[in-house]
Each structure stands twice: as structure tokens, then as C-alpha cells.
């Protein structure tokens, strides 16, 4: 079962994305800040990370760069979930190593499809872990 890291400061978004991906059959771990997201990414090495851009402590761009700079997580696909729709923001995200981006307001179903797509792409290219990773939640519980 693929593990997905969902990091967003906004509890509503975090819970909604986690709920949607859990319904799609993924194991979901969550984080509410940049540092917590990075910690979770290093601890669980998820199959996909869905990161908000504007997070306290560290932006989604920086978390993405750190994920790419760490050998253990280098291959983890990253989807940025952002309210910043300008072309320059998208370019910054892709420059930071993100695989895809979704602009808020977003469709939960579309996000689930994007996650499925990057997972399939990862499987085709042999990237990402096989099977589920240990589940931990920075908030002590799943939504």
C-alpha cells in the first residue's frame, strides 16, 4: 500500500487531502509545518509527498529541496499544493525538484488522480519504495 505524506498548515485542507487519499487506498501520514514535514519524510520515506507551499518554519519549496538533497528521499515524487498560481511560482516549484503542482482551490478527486499518476510513473521508472512504509503521524492520529 503506497504511503503518502500530506503536509499543510491548514487543518481543513490537511484532513480533506488525507481523507481523500485514504479513501483511494493509500496510507497517509500528515504534518502541519515545514520542519515536521521534513522529519516525516525522512522517517517514513513516503511513496509520494503532497506539500503546501506556505508552511510555518520552512516553505514547501525548501522541504522539496531538502527531500531532493537527501539520498534516502531523493526519489520521492513531490506534488506541491499551492495557492500561488503565477507561472514564476510554478517554475520555482519545478526548479526545487517538484514533479507536479496543484493550485488551490483544488478538486480533491483531481489531486487523487495526480497522486495516482506520479505513483504509476514512479513504478514505471522503478523509482519509489515497494510496499508500505511505517505509519507515523505528527499529530498523533489520522483524520
Amino acid at each position, binding site marked *: 500500500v503506497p504511503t503518502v505524506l500530506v503536509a499543510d498548515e491548514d487543518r*481543513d485542507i490537511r484532513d*480533506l487531502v488525507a*481523507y481523500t487519499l485514504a479513501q483511494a487506498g493509500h496510507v497517509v501520514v500528515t504534518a502541519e509545518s515545514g520542519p515536521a514535514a521534513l522529519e516525516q519524510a525522512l522517517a517514513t520515506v513516503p511513496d509520494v509527498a503532497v506539500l503546501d507551499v506556505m508552511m510555518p518554519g520552512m516553505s514547501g519549496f525548501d522541504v522539496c529541496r531538502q527531500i531532493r538533497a537527501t539520498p534516502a528521499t531523493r526519489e520521492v515524487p513531490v506534488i506541491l499544493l499551492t495557492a500561488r498560481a503565477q507561472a514564476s511560482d510554478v517554475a520555482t516549484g519545478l526548479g526545487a525538484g517538484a514533479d507536479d503542482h496543484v493550485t488551490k482551490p483544488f478538486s*480533491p*478527486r483531481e489531486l487523487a488522480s495526480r497522486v495516482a499518476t506520479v505513483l504509476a510513473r514512479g513504478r514505471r521508472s522503478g523509482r519509489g519504495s515497494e510496499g508500505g512504509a511505517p505509519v507515523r503521524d505528527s499529530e498523533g492520529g489520522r483524520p
Partner: protein
Amino acid sequence: VTPAAPVTALLLTLLALSALLAVLALTIVLRRGMRARGARRAAARSEPVRPILLSILAGDEVDQATLGALATLDRRTWAVVEPTIVGLLGKVRGEGRDALVALLVERGVHGRALRDTRARSAVRRCGAAELLGSLATPEAVDVLVELLGDTDGEVRLVAARALGRAEDPAAAAALVSSLSGPRAVPHRVVARSLARLGAGVEPALIAALGSPDVLTRAVSADILGAVGAVGSVPVLAAAVRDTDGGEVRIRAARALGRLGLSGGAAPLVDAVAVGNPSALRAVATRALGDVGDGALVGVLAELLGDEDHQVAQNAATALTRCGSTGVLALRDAAGADTAAEEGEAPADVSPYAANYARAALAELDRTGALPAPQARAGEVPA
């Protein structure tokens, strides 16, 4: 009066002040405690409803009984659930969102907001406009358009912002009109809202480029570029060439660059000609780089030696975006001053051109985008 009297009076005053401070501190602590308890109670009331809301927003099939249960929630529970629902509306799209809007209409929230737009209090009208922007029903958009002409400036501003959130291109013409007149809305707010409406705003903005108001024309040109209105290239080209345009010409040049179509190159080349305003030439030079057509390399290479330093600097940056021929032109310019000293090139080469070319190449190198030098046609590689 004994000598001790003033001391006693001072002590009594201090005592009274201390007692007052203690009462104030106690009041603050009690109020905080009550507020925290209220928040806990509200959370306890809304928490059981939360999974249902998430399920609806995620687009799950929700049976009518569940929706019916939400529609008939008791008043106190609804009071704490409603802000959560309204808050969620602005964050998601899709069928789930539509279902929650229908629920808010059924609970009378939509009707209340429509009524509140006619309230005497500007604060209530602002609140209603905010809510209607989240609901984004056709009726809400019509009322928000009316609020763009409200007597209160804050209400007009909230209405303009709410129309952006509603994302209905039908509001484009009204938003453009709100840029001018005695009840104008700040242009940054209008511009941001127009940009959120997407490519559907193109007809209204093209029409607005014919407005007598300069600000209206300038903002319209800007947004046409921002929303990628590729059909607007001919009107933007005309705006760049409009010698009475001032700021409009600059915005139109920038928009043509954003669109990045080769059809926009000719008016930009005209705009960089010496004699045009300096700011227009600088923006048009940068925009030529955004178009990034290899056929523009000659024009940009010539601009490297321009007397206007901003134009020259922008030309160097623009050349980095014109592919391998642009980089080749930069390399030529970077070595031209040395070649001139050694008598291998014309002596009238601008030293600034070489500096700007070297700086642009260094920046490419720093970002890892500098290609390795290639042999020219006819040259034998070493």
C-alpha cells in the same frame, strides 16, 4: 492633620490600585477560560459533523439521508458548523463543493447574505459580500456586481475581491468599469480579481483597451498578458504602437512578452527603437527575450551596445533566452573588447556591451544552463 496622614492615604491608594489590578487580572483569566470552554464545546459539537463534510467535499456518494441530517441540524450545532463549511468553500472545487453550496442555500445562509447586502451597516454589507463570493451562485455574482457601486469604499473593495473568488467571467466588464469614476476600486484589487477569472475575460478586456481612461487601458493590457489571452496579440500590438499611450504602451509590451508569441515580436522591435521612451524600450527589450525567437538575436545583439544601460542589460538577459544563437551572440560580444584591443575586431565596440554579455554568461554558468562552446560552421574544432 498628623504627619502620618499622607502616608496612610498613599497606602490606601496603593491598596485600592492593587485590588483593582487583581480584579482585572481575574476577569481576564475568567474570560479566557470561558472562551476556551466555548471553543471546546463548539469543537465537540462540530467534530461529529466533520467526517460527513470531508466525505461530501471529497466527492463521495452521499445519501440523501445524510444531507437531510445536515440540513436539519439544530440551531446551536449549525452555528458552529456553518463557519467551517463557509471556510472550506474557498479552498476546494468540484461536486462536493456544489453540494455544500446547495446545503447553505437550503439553510437560508444564501438568502440572509443577499438581504444583508442592503443592510444599513457597511460592516454587514462587507460580511455579506465576502460570503456571497464564497457561495459564487449566479445570483450572488449579480449582487456583487451591484455592490461594486456601493457608497462605501470598503464594501466596493470586498465586492471586487469576492468577484475574483467567484471566478465568473460574466463579471469582467463590471470589474473593468470599476477602475474609473467617482467610486473607483483600487486597481491592484481589480487586476487580481480579473486575473482569477481566467481566459474568459478576453472579450471584455479587449473592449476595454478602447476606453478613454488610461488606467483602464493599462490594467486591461496587463491582465490580457496574465491570463494568456493569445487572441489579443493584434490589439496589444496596436496599444504598443499607440504613441499617446504612455503607461499603456509599457503594459502592452510586457503583456506581449508574457504571451510569448512570435506575432508579438514586430511591435516590440518597433518599440525598442531609439527615440521611444526609455522605460518602454527597456520593457520591450525584456519582452523580446520572453518571445525568445532566434530571429530576434540580431536586434538584441545590437541593443547590447545601447546608450541606455537598462536596455543594454535587458538585451543581455534576453539573449540568454534565445537559445544557442543567443548564447553565441553573447560570447561574441563578451570577447569583442579584447578582440578590438588586439586589432581583430572593429575598434568602435562598446565596452559596456562586453561587460553585460559577460555578466549574463556568468549568470547562465551559475545556474548550470550555460552550454559548452560549439564550433561555428566552417570552423575546425581544436
